[in-house]
């Protein structure tokens, strides 16, 4: 019970001090809005293009929201040494890091809701399979957050966190089938697409929104879970090796 009190309070503290701050809320709203507008205008097809753009917009909103926030907040706390306070408390490291990442996961899910809510007003989403869309959103938020954690553990400075995050994020925009089908990529780049976790998340979203997934859910979800486990484990190993010297 005492561990869960700590877990819940770390999560609440992060939500209050980072994620619910007006600049972050506006970032969470504006960023998906900007992407939506950009791709809507770029498609030039009118409102009927929304369902085909939606999986990519949801994925990119989560990816940028979760990775940015976590990589920056953890690096910031490490830098001003308040993270030591958490490491010195009697909570298992795994639970502590789940609490720290919980806020970013929720932030990612909230970011996903922006293009979804907008789409509700302009297009028909009655054929969307919410049963697979909802876990896909959570899975993408988790993978993105753990990627952000991996970045935070790998760098020392806040600006390095942003730079290193972009090293992963920007290739994902083009390689994971967010807006361009993987089949349209040059043949030598396609294997790279299947090494990136977002490919599987976007595939679930495509299936849920348009019924056009290219891989079975039985593959997509386990691969996403595997990435979560691997990224989280590597991050914990990094914390143990670098921060508890």
């Amino acid at each position, binding site marked *: 019970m005492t*561990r869960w*009190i700590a877990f819940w309070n770390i999560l609440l503290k992060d939500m209050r001090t980072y994620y619910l701050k007006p600049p972050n809320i506006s970032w969470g709203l504006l960023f998906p809005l900007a992407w939506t507008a950009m791709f809507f205008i770029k498609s030039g097809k009118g409102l009927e293009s929304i369902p085909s753009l939606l999986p990519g917009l949801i994925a990119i909103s989560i990816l940028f929201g979760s990775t940015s926030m976590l990589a920056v907040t953890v690096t910031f706390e490490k830098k001003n040494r308040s993270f030591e306070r958490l*490491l*010195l*408390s*009697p909570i298992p490291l795994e639970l502590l890091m789940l609490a720290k990442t919980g806020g970013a996961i929720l932030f990612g899910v909230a970011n996903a809701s922006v293009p979804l809510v907008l789409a509700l007003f302009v297009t028909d989403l009655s054929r969307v399979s919410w049963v697979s869309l909802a876990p896909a959103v959570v899975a993408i938020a988790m993978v993105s957050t753990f990627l952000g954690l991996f970045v935070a553990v790998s760098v020392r400075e806040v600006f390095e966190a942003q730079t290193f995050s972009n090293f992963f994020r920007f290739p994902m925009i083009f390689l994971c089938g967010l807006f361009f089908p993987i089949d349209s990529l040059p043949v030598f780049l396609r294997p790279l697409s299947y090494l990136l976790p977002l490919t599987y998340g976007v595939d679930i979203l495509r299936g849920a929104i348009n019924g056009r997934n290219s891989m079975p859910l039985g593959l997509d979800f386990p691969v996403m879970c595997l990435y979560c486990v691997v990224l989280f484990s590597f991050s914990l190993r990094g914390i143990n090796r670098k921060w508890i*010297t």
Partner: protein
Amino acid sequence: METRPSHTPAPPENPFFIEVSELSKRFGEVAAVDRVSFEVRRGELFGFLGPNGAGKTTTINMLTGLARPDSGEIRVGGLDCTGNPKAAQHQIGVVPDESNLYPELSGLENLCFCAALYGMRKNERRGRARELLETFGLKEAGDRKFAGYSRGMKRKLTIAAGIIHDPQVLFLDEPTSGIDVASARHIRQLVADLHRAGTTIFLTTHNIEEAERLCERIAFIVRGRIVRVDTVANLLQPVREKHVMAVSASGSAPAHCLDLASAFPFLRFQPLSEGRILVESPDPIRVGPLVHFLDDHDIEVIEARLVQPSLEDVFVRVTGIETDAMTKEKERVAGSA
């Protein structure tokens, strides 16, 4: 300060709360801590003194679980923490040398958050936080953000956060460094109160006067090795057995030290700056012959006063390091941070 009932009763057979044996830690080629052994008794206020880079922080980090020892053994509260530092973390409070609370949270919120990290329930943590804000003279500032606190207030709140869960042992790293005199006095008083209330305290400080005033026993660490551990009384005994007098005189009195040593073979003379001489003797020093001797050499004695040797003299003798240099180095580091 109020003693809280949550302290686990000590096993009567073991008088030590912290036991460190042959503890070592290397960073590359550098032995930061080299086969360090010591014990801290239950309820003791134990000082850990040494110059910068001596291995104090590395030792504290290993004791609290922020660093892993390469070899050796650590027991805290009877629990073996060598491989499992989490084992005793609920009994430990840590006040780092930097006030590292959350700037966006108020004083009260910071304390409540720290209490929650130790599993305290909402009502309990709010009550304890308010009690500590009052004890530390921060009641009025409880709702203000930590970022807006003065340095002294930040230090006090950081100490309050370290004891929010009523730990059995408190690691205090430089509690009064870089703060005003009044706040430093208040903090020393609070530390003494905590000690009286039964908390074991492991104090690291560059302020030797502070250590002398507060600590019962002191360990000196130099270049990663403990060079001396003893009670303050025992450490001071050899220097206090001597009689020391500082003589201020006009002109070039220090230049006559050799003449003085020839004339008074049972006394030891040490030239100091600005016409001052330090005179040491195992017996009481007779001032008259000294004054006559200097007068015969056309040197006027302005003042002669007995000097009470302090722990600082012991520190200089044991470590071979001038404390002024240590303090300046500390201030330089603090200033550049």
